[in-house]
């Protein structure tokens, strides 16, 4: 079965991102496919490569990147939500005259259409938020 995941909350402010991660991992272990993980609203904060949590804490951003790399996941960050919160890839940074970009490995920036498409293509859409 194909599942699409929506993450509406950032790491460390709410458990939603942890739950979404563990759910996605369990779904993959059971042999389901993940159409896309769409990070929306504060959820885009899962996609910054500059997070440095304490060494004894989980690094959610890194966990998402690693899971994405291992399973070839499409990790999409909503562009409007990301720009408001200072999450930029190299192209967006250049376009807006910023001196740095911070999008984490394995993530890509795209639009809300990707959420609609995932909802249409997947068998189930599962939302995690506050």
């Amino acid at each position: 079965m194909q599942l699409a995941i929506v993450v509406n909350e950032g790491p460390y402010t709410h458990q939603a991102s942890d739950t979404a991660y563990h759910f996605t991992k369990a779904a993959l272990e059971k042999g389901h496919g993940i159409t896309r993980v769409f990070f929306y609203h504060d959820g885009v904060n899962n996609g910054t490569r500059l997070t440095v949590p304490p060494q004894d804490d989980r690094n959610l951003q890194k966990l998402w990147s690693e899971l994405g790399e291992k399973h070839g996941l499409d990790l999409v960050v909503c562009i409007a939500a990301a720009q408001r919160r200072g999450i930029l890839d190299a192209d967006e940074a250049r376009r807006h005259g910023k001196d740095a970009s911070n999008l984490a490995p394995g993530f890509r920036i795209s639009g809300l259409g990707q959420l609609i498409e995932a909802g249409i293509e997947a068998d189930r859409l599962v939302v995690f938020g506050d």
Partner: protein
Amino acid sequence: MSTLHTVNKTPFERNALQSCVGHLSPGDALLMIEDGVVGARKGSSATAMVQAALASGGVYALASDLDARGIRPEDMIEGIQRVDYGGFVDLVAQHARTVAWL
């Protein structure tokens, strides 16, 4: 066309559980996750509401979230089933759609 409902807030913080229970159709399932698992504890003012949900369909609670909050199997309302993340995935697959009561 059954629905899986997820509730992630305690019934003492928000009315998500109450709203959800009011919308359950026969054959639907209710899964308590995150702080929502507090609703699985027996002997609270929310117990009757959860028992009403149990009468109309399956009620489940995420085991790791129960454990994190010190809610042991013997503390839980009878009939609520503990599931792990794999069980969560199975519930999503078994129902035609999932609604998150955020």
